[in-house]
């Protein structure tokens, strides 16, 4: 009983301090790199919110859930199930990711190009930017690939596939500094 009271008291104290400091979610945003732990935490937060949110907010929350879960190929099937009954344009990207994962690179590029033509960018999404960058690089369009790979690396700076492809693109473009920086990072992984 005493332990319970102590636990409640200490938790309440922490909550009061966090509230007074006004930094409830700031700690998560500070380190917003999309490693597995971070993505999992975001998904859990939304799932928790979904349990108590009114029905009119479900569409928005499902979209957020899909957005996070689609940052790994393993989550794509679940994304499709979650999107059933909704009309999210973002599902074009999910479809493109599935095509890419199945080895249908041309179809994936076609779908992503169409999506980017309509919406200009897919902000805050690691995998979409990574795959779009990889596809351009594979087609020999290094210059087009660089901004997408760089963007993806802002979200997941230790992704070796992105780093290796980016290095090749910089080589193609004769970008000496870019190549040197990527090499320095890759050397740390050796």
């Amino acid at each position, binding site marked *: 009983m005493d332990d319970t009271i102590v636990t409640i008291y200490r938790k309440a104290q922490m909550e009061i*301090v966090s509230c007074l400091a*006004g930094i409830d979610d700031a700690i998560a945003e500070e380190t917003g790199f999309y490693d597995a732990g971070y993505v999992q935490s975001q998904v859990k937060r939304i799932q928790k919110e979904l349990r108590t949110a009114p029905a009119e907010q479900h569409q928005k929350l499902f979209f957020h859930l899909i957005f996070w879960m689609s940052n790994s190929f393993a989550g794509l099937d679940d994304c499709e199930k979650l999107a059933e009954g909704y009309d999210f344009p973002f599902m074009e990207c999910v479809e493109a990711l599935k095509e890419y994962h199945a080895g249908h690179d041309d179809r994936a590029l076609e779908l992503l190009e169409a999506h980017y033509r309509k919406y200009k960018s897919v902000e805050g999404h690691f995998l979409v930017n990574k795959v779009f960058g990889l596809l351009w690089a594979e087609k020999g369009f290094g210059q087009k690939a660089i901004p997408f790979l760089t963007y993806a690396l802002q979200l997941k700076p230790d992704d070796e596939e992105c780093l290796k492809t980016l290095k090749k693109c910089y080589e193609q473009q004769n970008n000496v500094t870019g190549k040197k920086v990527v090499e320095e990072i890759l050397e740390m992984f050796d």
Partner: protein
Amino acid sequence: MYREEYIHCRQNQAFEQYRGGILLQKEIEKTYEEIDYKIRRPDLLGKTVQVTAHQFPTVNKLVKSICEYEQMECPPVYVYEDYYYGAESYGIRKPWIELSAKTIQDFSEEELGFVLGREIYKIADGVTGQKTMMEERFRMIRQMAPNQLEQASRISFYHWYRITNYSADNYGYLQCGNIHTAVNAILKMVLNSIGLADQVDIREFIGQASEINRLDDDVFNYTKADEPVPYAPHRIQNLMAYAISERGLRARETMERWKRV
């Protein structure tokens, strides 16, 4: 170099958030300059060795070079004896840097460039002044108000201060000119050992960031928020992301051009 080329994207926002809670700024500054600064001066001069052209010339040369780049006056640097690695800047109107002798002994010249670059950035950008004032403020609040207010004030400050540390890392990296060197310096500082730093597998060490991020509830987040300096795996992730970014590449080219001249 423009500040926007290396500061963390959330720094200005965090500062606005924290500045809202600042009270008695002028009074604290006056008390600090008239009392606390004077209390520290004799100890600094009597118990440390000041860096000059003849004492620790490598450190002196590095500080001069970084300050020349920033077009600012060189802060005095004092070397103290300690078992720990460490470099920290203090002061409001007349800032200085304290550096442990063990750091000079065990760090390469490039790694020292990273460590000193961090502190000079903090001085130049007013971070050191705010931190010194905040420490004074905590002392005052502790005597006048409930414990929770001091804790809340500290946590709000730490949020901004952690972010300034990311910016300091970015700046230190630009000064030392190599991401590997910057990461090595961070590892040595955090682990306080060359031997241990050499044993780190960067890939797995960064993996610890994922484990930290997985710890996400009120208690975990409170303890994470109560840290003045970000955790080392997050610092390494931040440095890598910055180095690859468009502005990071631009800033590095600018710095390399300046060093060649």
